[in-house]
């Protein structure tokens, strides 16, 4: 029993954090809003170059052979920086799905190699989301059709852009024709791979939500330490201190829940529903509270386009509903916990063990 990350995992995360701080500044994000795609191929290549798209690609397909525990801290950093590029969707959600099929499917194997090198990009559809993010910059789309999973070239789909409240997000509804050629899998395997993809999607969203929560609290703390009224920083007032402390409590207690979910999703994916839904609910609550208390701390400034807070706040609002909103995940928790056969109690925190 050891509930810590390794030195290597922490160190790599710190490096990625610094990289994102330098590359994904609020100014850079605002600039990306002006461009049609909203995305930067140069930035994507840099993410590829430090190995981020290859992290969960198996070694035999040119990747680093890592898992969701290795990636979870990186996903948190993507949230902290409000990274717009679809790194989490690609590396944490799409790649493991392809990897599950790659031993018996040359298309998946080749695609994995090219995702690792940055030559190809993917977008991931799922019935829980309705819309697909970043389909416009993908070469291939992973699309569900009932229990079938298809791999469809972008040229073969029709995309209709949908405007998100978050100017960094690029969302699309997709029209496409189901054909035999694009089918990857179906039946029981399709069901289980889609279920696992949903859990990894929710996990990635939860991680980003916690990064966003901390970013917003950081902005609000800096602002309230600086802004003076009645001759002193407004941050000396207990009302504002307690707003921020409440955010910290929510965030700190969502983290270990997130890490258990990452561990369970990578070691016992079939039993990860409860852990993942717990993480998504806890992280969503933490991020929504951080958004609400931060805009309150900023006052009128927080309600402006000029203030950077909305970059993070809008992403939090969006991701809280993406990969299953609170109702979806709470419903899973209720069904699990209130089942008379549920194995509950302190000795079951980490599941049934000898």
């Amino acid at each position, binding site marked *: *029993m*050891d*509930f*810590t*990350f*390794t030195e290597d995992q922490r160190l790599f995360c710190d490096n990625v954090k610094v990289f994102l701080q330098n590359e994904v500044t609020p100014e850079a994000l605002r600039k990306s809003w002006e461009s049609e795609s909203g995305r930067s191929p140069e930035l994507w290549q840099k993410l590829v170059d430090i190995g981020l798209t290859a992290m969960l690609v198996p070694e035999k397909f040119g990747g680093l052979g890592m898992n969701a*525990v290795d990636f979870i801290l990186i996903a948190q950093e993507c949230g902290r920086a409000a990274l717009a590029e679809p790194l989490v969707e690609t590396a944490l959600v799409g790649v493991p799905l392809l990897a599950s099929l790659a031993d018996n499917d040359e298309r998946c194997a080749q695609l994995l190699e090219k995702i690792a090198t940055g030559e190809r990009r993917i977008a991931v559809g799922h019935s829980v989301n309705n819309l697909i993010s970043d389909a416009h910059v993908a070469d291939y789309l992973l699309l569900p059709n009932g229990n079938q999973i298809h791999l469809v070239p972008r040229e073969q789909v029709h995309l209709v852009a949908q405007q998100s409240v978050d100017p960094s997000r690029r969302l699309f509804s997709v029209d496409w024709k189901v054909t035999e050629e694009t089918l990857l899998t179906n039946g029981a395997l399709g069901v289980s791979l889609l279920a696992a993809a949903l859990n990894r999607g929710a996990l990635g969203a939860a991680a980003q939500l916690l990064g966003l929560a901390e970013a917003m*609290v950081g902005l609000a*703390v800096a602002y*309230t*330490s600086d802004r003076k009224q009645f001759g*002193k*920083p407004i*941050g*000396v007032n*207990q009302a*504002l*201190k*307690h707003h*921020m*402390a*409440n955010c*910290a*409590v929510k965030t*700190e*207690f*969502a*983290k*270990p*829940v997130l*890490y*258990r979910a990452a*561990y*369970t999703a990578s*070691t016992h994916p079939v039993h990860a529903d409860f852990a993942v839904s*717990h993480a998504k*609910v*806890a992280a969503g609550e933490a991020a929504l509270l951080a958004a609400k208390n931060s805009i309150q701390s900023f006052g009128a400034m927080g309600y402006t386009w000029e203030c950077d807070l909305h970059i993070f706040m809008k992403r939090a609002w969006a991701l809280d509903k993406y990969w299953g909103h609170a109702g979806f995940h*709470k419903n899973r*928790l*209720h069904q699990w*916990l*209130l089942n*008379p056969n*549920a194995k*509950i*109690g*302190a*000795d079951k*925190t*980490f599941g049934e*063990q*000898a």
Partner: protein
Amino acid sequence: MDLIYTPEQNAFRKEVRAWLAANIPAKPLASFDTQEGFEQHRAWEKTLAKGNWGMVTWPKEYGGRGCNLIEWLIFEEEYYRASAPLRVNQNGIFLLGPTLMEYGTPAQKERFITKMASGEEMWAQGWSEPGAGSDLAAIRSKAIRQGDEYVLNGQKVWSTRAVFADWVFCIFRTDPASERHHGLSFIFVPLNAPGVTVRPIPQLDGLPGFAEIFFDDVRVPVENRLGDEGQGWNIAMSTAGFERGLMLRSPARFQETAKRLVKLYREHSNDILDLSIEDAVVKCYMDAEAYALSTYQTASRLMKGGKIGSESSVNKIFWSELDQLMHETAMNILGWRAELWPQSPAAGDVGHWLDGFLFAQSGPIYAGTNEIQRNIIAERLLGMPRK
């Protein structure tokens, strides 16, 4: 990260489970806020000590087992799962014990830890004063040195179980000219010393769980001072860290309550009209698990040489508000039965929820109010301005 218990840890769990099953008193003990219940609980502490289960994390020479923190968590999980009696000496073993290990002289450790571990000496805490609550540094009770003794004068209040305890660990002002955090010292006082008057204060349940303690020219030897003269504040803050943080409220306690709450909900689900109750039940269970996960994370980190910091304030807010929510939810489920004391014939087997509900009211107040904890988090963890 490896969230699997080792074979040794699983074996340890089995050993604890078997020992508790064989040794827990058949009849529930009376409340430890009565003389009778206090002595029953003292006897239970002695039984635990005989089996070397009193404080499993302590070194073997003090009656412990030298367990690491993960083993301690397992012990606690089994302890609450078995509904073992509450720990009457918790001020001693959970708060003073670890502080003594850190700051005590070899002679003090030998003298005090051994008898604390064996269940012979029960401890109360004497920090708060009528004018020093949240503002603990406003302490006025004095300890004036005369030769090899301190002469104590003043008043302490809200001392839990001091009515029946043997000793109290206090903070006194040893430098009369000092102010605030300076000039304070950490001193042990036997409650039967001449000049000590203990006056019971009945708590919400009507039992004398609190006391105020008056000191009139009480003399104690200088050897009863923990740490250096004037170091009292720092030692107290380290004790407070244990109090708010890891040791005092292990997650198993809340997980066990949450599990019983789920059971209570299932048993009464047909009578429940308020749809929000189900949501609260699920939230309680999840939050209890989050607290456990957080503690496992902290324990793992400490075992690798990490230190505990402001997270103890974050913890204290979380467990105290969770405990409130769990008991409020139980009261909402119980409806008309909620107000009944356990001894009421109509209370059936659910009356104990009322005791828990009353005690849960104290959680956000003791060990530093949650308002004070929020200030600490804002200023020390987040860096917000003091002035």
